[in-house]
């Protein structure tokens, strides 16, 4: 049996904000025992998709399968008093509770830190909510589109005269989940010395506003400059920092640094345009003559495939990369050689490739051990087998619809 870094750590995951699922995934993939508490209707991401053949099936949602492998699922209806009491019993015997929920939802579910702290003083309680549990916006509703807006990322993506864009998919979930996982892990680490858990308050908008866009605030205070979005180019740096079409797709080039620029000119054959005095200040030229500069290298790019250009940029030590698409990533030799893609059999969705380890731990490897659980698959084994509920009581609660599975 392989050792796991987080073996023995019991984590309860609760709530419909996807960040909690990513935090749980990060911990489960390194061996924590993550129990996902779902409502009787199932976690909303079970209905999100993508579904095989686009046929909606709560057991085959791609997002759910990806986010919840290595976890167990129990169904407990926290809207009922007996459900809340079960949840309390579960929390009593756990190391951490990650709740992805608004302050209102937390209140309804009876998940308040003063109570939880009494119930289990060693509990690490980590909440993920749109704006945190304090502050004037705490009760505002928000999705990824909103927290990305408030966190300052959206104004930087897209064309200057058009609608700003957020990052694709739900990156708020990933970033808030990462911060929540850091909060959980540092708290369980510190607990050995202190003997006590804590409440960590993760605010989605604030994760963007600190780690991602935070450094921009002092930059603005000193320079008065606000970041402008500029489509496929990044302004404020010397050209080129751009994405351009080539023979078989798109290629990103970042040769702002002098040494990279010199190499790029050498690679392309030091054409006359590189010596043109109007391009001497490449920061200014990037802002004023971006299209013209792009057009200068587009014929060279158009004659070559992404792999040809990628090979050349690496030889010349210029930062550049193809915009890879999903099909190419599945076939990529580098990713294959590192064993990035993993496969696992799921009782309903069958055997599929999943994105694998973001990191390799030499002694306690990242591992995909079990597929995402069916709804309530572990309700009985956890509640009866581990929590000590009698079979009779379990059946009563099942009949009342408080538990399921």
């Amino acid at each position, binding site marked *: 049996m392989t050792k796991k870094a987080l073996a023995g750590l019991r984590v309860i995951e609760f709530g419909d904000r996807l960040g909690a699922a990513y935090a749980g995934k990060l911990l489960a993939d390194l061996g924590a025992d993550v129990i996902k508490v779902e409502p009787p209707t199932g976690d909303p991401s079970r209905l999100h998709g*993508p579904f095989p053949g686009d046929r909606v099936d709560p057991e085959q949602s791609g997002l759910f399968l*990806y986010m919840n492998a290595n976890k167990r699922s129990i169904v407990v209806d926290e809207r009922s008093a007996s459900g809340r009491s079960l949840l309390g019993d579960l929390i009593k015997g756990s190391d951490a509770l990650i709740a992805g929920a608004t302050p209102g939802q937390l209140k309804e579910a009876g998940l308040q830190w003063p109570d939880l702290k009494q119930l289990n003083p060693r509990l690490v309680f980590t909440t993920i909510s749109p704006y945190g549990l304090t502050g004037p916006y705490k009760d505002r509703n928000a999705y990824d589109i909103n927290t990305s807006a408030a966190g300052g990322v959206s104004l930087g993506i897209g064309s200057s005269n058009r609608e700003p864009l957020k990052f694709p998919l739900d990156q708020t979930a990933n970033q808030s989940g990462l911060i929540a996982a850091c909060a959980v892990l540092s708290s369980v680490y510190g607990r050995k010395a202190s003997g006590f858990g804590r409440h960590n308050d993760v605010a989605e908008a604030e994760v963007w*506003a600190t780690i991602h866009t935070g450094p921009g605030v002092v930059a603005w205070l000193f320079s008065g400059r606000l970041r402008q979005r500029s489509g496929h180019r990044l302004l404020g740096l010397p050209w080129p920092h751009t994405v351009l079409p080539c023979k078989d797709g798109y290629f990103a080039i970042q040769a702002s640094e002098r040494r990279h620029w010199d190499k790029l000119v050498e690679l392309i054959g030091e054409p006359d345009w590189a010596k043109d005095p109007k391009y001497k200040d490449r920061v200014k030229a990037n802002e004023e003559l971006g299209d013209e500069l792009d057009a200068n290298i587009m014929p060279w790019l158009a004659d070559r495939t992404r792999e040809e250009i990628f090979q050349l940029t690496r030889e010349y030590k210029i930062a550049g990369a193809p915009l890879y698409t999903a099909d190419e990533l599945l076939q990529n030799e580098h990713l294959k050689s590192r064993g990035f893609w993993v496969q696992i059999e799921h009782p309903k969705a069958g055997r599929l490739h999943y994105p694998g380890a973001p990191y390799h731990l030499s002694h306690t490897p990242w591992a995909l051990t079990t597929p995402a659980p069916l709804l309530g698959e572990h309700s009985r084994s956890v509640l009866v087998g581990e929590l000590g509920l009698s079979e009779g009581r379990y059946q009563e609660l099942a009949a009342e619809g408080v538990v399921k599975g």
Partner: protein
Amino acid sequence: MNGPLQGVRIVDFGWVWAGAVPGQILADLGAEVIKIESGKRLDFMRRGRPIIGNKLDPEQNHMFHNVNRGKLSLTIDLNDPRGTSLIKQLVAKSDAAIENFAPGYLNRVGLDYASLIQVNPSLVMISMAAAGQSGPLQDVRGYATIMAALGGMDYLVGYPGEAPMGSQQAYADPNASLHATVALLSAMYHRQQTGEGQYIDLSQWDTTLVTVGEMLMDYTMNGRVGGPKGNQYPGMAPCGNYPCRGEDTWVSIGVKTDAEWQGLVQAMGSPVWAAEPDFATSQARESNQFALDRHLAAWTRPLTPDEATELLSKHGVAAAPLMDHQARFFDPHFRERETYVEVEHPILGREILYNVPWTMDDVPRKITRRAPLLGEHTEYVCREILGLGADEIATLTEAEVLR
């Protein structure tokens, strides 16, 4: 109460952005993080145009101050055997090491994991190269835009049906940093439980790929490759940023449930168009989202982002203004939570840095100390941690080993 990592010591070779943030977070949490620097090969973040005067000055980059606050700075020559010997002595007295050099560099100077566990068998060490420590593309350079391109994110960024434009933001840097912090803390937890250290090989490319899992699953399930998504997200309509009164001001609006849609309709004063069958169900709204966007934009245009947000929030609709750096700095919510905090710096004076990324109920939210000046703690580290005498320090400084 002190931070949870009080008593932990980290040797931090991490540099630029992605490599600096894990040590910054650990320092925020109370660890003693010693940044290994070189006066000969400055951290890229120490370079750049000066703010005061016009001479290059390694102490004037506020980006550096954000991502290296809380740390100590030790300047040391890694190409001199006396320097590497001191590093080994420091590692022997530390819990973990962080590095993001190009693969092979630490091996060349004799400070790779295999060498370091000779002096500290229970060391936890993380390498965070662009494409990891193995495989044919090890030589890929770790710039955030490169990671976003390779990682399948960039081709999803753009307006639907148009050419991909890439995110043009350093998403991949902090994203790699946070994944590194999770891996490092997990290995430290394992070490705390068992006494066993280990080596972590992180690939920044892989950390980007795991953030587009939903798209990759659509390919492995359905063979769909996809393309630029704009602001679309399955199951939501409207989901976008809508123009407001004034130049380049926008409000974000997201609707998932029917109740939220009803709230939006009421907030708009129940216009006739909203009652059309085209917008009656969430499926219908999603198929007709371009028409829906035009109607909604016409409604938001006379409002300010704050007016629209207030009104929509009252009706339970998810809405928020698009905030730039200035707006976030003055925002009452971020003010109350002290998202940004004033820190005194000896060269730049008062600076506003981002605070610890989340709040803890029992630890005050604050930055433990400002970013270090280059080599500011060289003497402290040599004397207090390594136990060197004043003469030895003077000799090594003279020989430029400690520079």
